[in-house]
């Protein structure tokens, strides 16, 4: 943002070019034509782009819902159950939004689950909770977000400036963050006793649980960040072609770092949601969360090689998995069967994605 803000306006060089090369056309006509083509191309892009790309996901979600209604009837198709599904989706959803940015930027973060555990433990230690009781429960919120952000910063700095491969760096963070969480908590479950925190986080907003509202807000914010801001555009550029992005003047190292900080903060938020849902902080929170998040992002159509991806796709990915496990639970299927189904969905989604990618390259 800051390094590119030079004075806008048409410079002398441009006019020079127009005079020599361009056909000097009637400006009014050009403007009109421009406005027209903008409307058509933009509208067309929305229809064929966002909708067309996600139609497979919509169909998949509908199929799962149909199966749910057929096998569980009213137990599935009820408002209560819908809320249950969304609550289930909310924590992994928040992390997946952050993960979408990391994967679009060409990286991967295996440490999200461990960071969630560490943040949940750190925000619920005796010391933190004592301080929170003396002042405000916001202390816990601050600690969780700061711990998440700090872990992301360590990941980001070592990946971007230390040239450690993201897979290895975040694998190391996965091990050490959860280890640190175990050390701090002495492997005990820490119960949340700050009343203010419990009151706020268990509240409903217009009948909708706060966790679901947070997921919705994070999804909307993520969409805006990716599609409407310089941050999002740079993320796409860095993931699409890091060398070209660097030579175009983007500070690729700084941007990469910021992306990992972003996912770290998302993990801090997810830790708070764990504290709210379970009323405990624990070093076992978020176990295997990284796999769920990566799976949701990937079936949502984000390329693991970076440069392309959507928030809408990720949200669908999260909903597909949480609806699927809801249907399995309602039918008293064990989690093992569920895991097999999950694996199948991932493989099918990736196969479809590759086919689409090949088609777009050959045209």
């Amino acid at each position: 943002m800051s390094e590119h803000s030079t004075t806008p306006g048409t410079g002398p060089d441009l006019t020079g070019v127009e005079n020599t090369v361009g056909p000097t056309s009637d400006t009014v006509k050009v403007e009109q034509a421009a406005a027209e083509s903008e409307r058509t191309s933009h509208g067309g892009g929305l229809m064929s782009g966002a909708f067309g790309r996600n139609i497979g996901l919509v169909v998949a979600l509908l199929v799962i819902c149909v199966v749910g209604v057929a096998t569980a009837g009213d137990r599935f198709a009820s408002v209560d159950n819908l809320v249950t599904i969304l609550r289930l989706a909310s924590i992994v959803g928040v992390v997946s939004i952050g993960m979408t940015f990391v994967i679009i930027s060409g990286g991967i973060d295996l440490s999200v689950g461990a960071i969630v555990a560490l943040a949940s433990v750190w925000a619920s230690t005796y010391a933190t909770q004592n301080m929170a009781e003396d002042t405000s429960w916001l202390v816990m919120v601050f600690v969780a977000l700061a711990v998440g952000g700090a872990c992301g910063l360590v990941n980001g700095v070592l990946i971007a400036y230390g040239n450690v491969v993201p897979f290895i760096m975040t694998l190391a963070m996965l091990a050490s963050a959860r280890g640190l969480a175990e050390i701090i908590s002495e492997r005990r479950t820490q119960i949340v006793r700050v009343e203010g925190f419990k009151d706020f986080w268990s509240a409903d907003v217009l009948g909708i649980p706060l966790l679901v509202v947070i997921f919705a807000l994070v999804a909307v914010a993520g969409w805006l960040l990716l599609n409407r801001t310089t941050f999002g555009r740079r993320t796409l550029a860095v993931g699409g072609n890091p060398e070209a992005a660097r030579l175009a003047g983007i500070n690729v190292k700084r941007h990469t770092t910021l992306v990992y900080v972003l996912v770290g903060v998302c993990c801090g938020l997810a830790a708070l949601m764990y504290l709210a849902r379970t009323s405990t902080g624990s070093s076992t929170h978020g176990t295997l969360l990284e796999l769920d998040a990566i799976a949701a992002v990937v079936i949502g159509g984000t390329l693991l090689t970076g440069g392309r991806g959507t928030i809408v796709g990720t949200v669908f990915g999260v909903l597909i998995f949480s609806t699927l496990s809801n249907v399995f639970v309602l039918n008293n299927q064990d989690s093992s069967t569920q895991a097999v189904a999950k694996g199948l969905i991932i493989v099918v989604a990736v196969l479809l994605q590759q086919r689409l990618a090949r088609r777009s390259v050959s045209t």
Partner: protein
Amino acid sequence: MRGIVKRFPGVLALGGVDLDVRPGEVHCLLGQNGAGKSTLIKVLSASYQPDEGEILWEGEPVALGTPQAAMKLGISTIYQELDLVPGLSVAENIFLGHELSSAGVSQRGRTNREAAALLARLGHSEISPTREVGRLTPAAQQVVSMARALSQNTRLLVLDEPSAVLDQGEVDNLFRVIADLTAEGVAIVYISHRLEEIRQIGDRITVLKDGSTVATGLAVADTPTAELIKLMTGRSIEYVFPPRGDAATTPREPVLEVSGLELPGVFSGVDLTVHAGEIVGLAGLVGAGRSEIIETVYGARRPTAGVVRVNGKELRRGSVTAAVKAGLGLAPEERKSQGLLLDQAIYSNITVSTMGRFARLGFLDRGEERRRSREITESLDVRPAGVDRLVRLLSGGNQQKVVLARWLLRECKVLLLDEPTRGVDVGARAEIYTVVRALADSGVAIVVVSSEVEEVLGLADRVLVVREGRVVHEGPATEIDESRVLDLVMEGSAA
């Protein structure tokens, strides 16, 4: 090949192409970017299946179902992007896919011996068969590709712009190899944008335009260059360089000043001053350090010594961000891998260096981005029009215009152009030259690096000749001719 038709979704890439190649001849394939040359050779090598038409091999119709089938017949193709495995040795690459083995155990000794024999036949016995391919120069890698083609008893060799990565000496060597091969009866299909090369080695020419054959079997000797260009373009001009302004005569203030720049093992003691409104050309062989010099000026490499100043202000070493902030712009040598975000829209490729201008509190005004991009693409005549198209779908010349548009929008003070017309067809070249000159006339300081001496001399006001990492000559472009430049760059390096 008779009446070959190939359709892609929405595009008719080839609409009835005929091509006949005789044993022992060099058949040149000419055409602008997007004329269908690459598609045609992919059909020939069976990477693509034609929708209509037939391929006759020694008079018999053949169906080439897979690339392996084509290879078995004796058709080998060397693509622009070399398809070698960097981690394997030279010999392993040469025999990749048809390894010499007995009972599944590879015969390393025999493989290396035969590879050495093939390399010697190509006049490159200095390349060790056990060397890792990733450590070779692009030119040497190309020799390995040719050796691979020879190792499979090739009867028809297709070369797609083989000279693009080579300097003059290496090109001469390539031509010698081609002459040897044709003497043995191997037919060559040769694709190049360089007409002078075709003059030198071609026997007959087929011209493609918009996916169809416009002329086939023209004898090289009897076809004037002007006629070829006319066939390719419908125009009758070769390179037209725009007239120089008065920049060379009127003294202006220096914009870019480089002194004592050094990158160990690559170049040293480079001094370079570019004034406002001036175009400075860097000539030299591939590998002489030209690209490295401007990449270092741009901050993409960190020098060990030397200072870069823009308008008198010293730049932080090795920082692209600082360089861009100070008003530098670079159109890099490898357009696709270094310059463009291929899977993104034209407009976001153009605004990527000026994003801050279109943002309020980090939020982008995409309507404004499109509007400004459209103004610039229209002034540069980027075809097809429309800024929402993916850059991947544009031809080389139009992709280069998108890179130029990026820096036009930024109104940079110094523009560094590395091989601005590589892979660009004749028509678009002239347009790019005009744009570059117009930019200089508006006060931008420009540095052009090019392997084509003619281009450097025609476009630049002042020429620097680089040899082995040192500037060996500096002077006005009008006071030096092509043969003198070649003298300077070859001197000493031939021994």
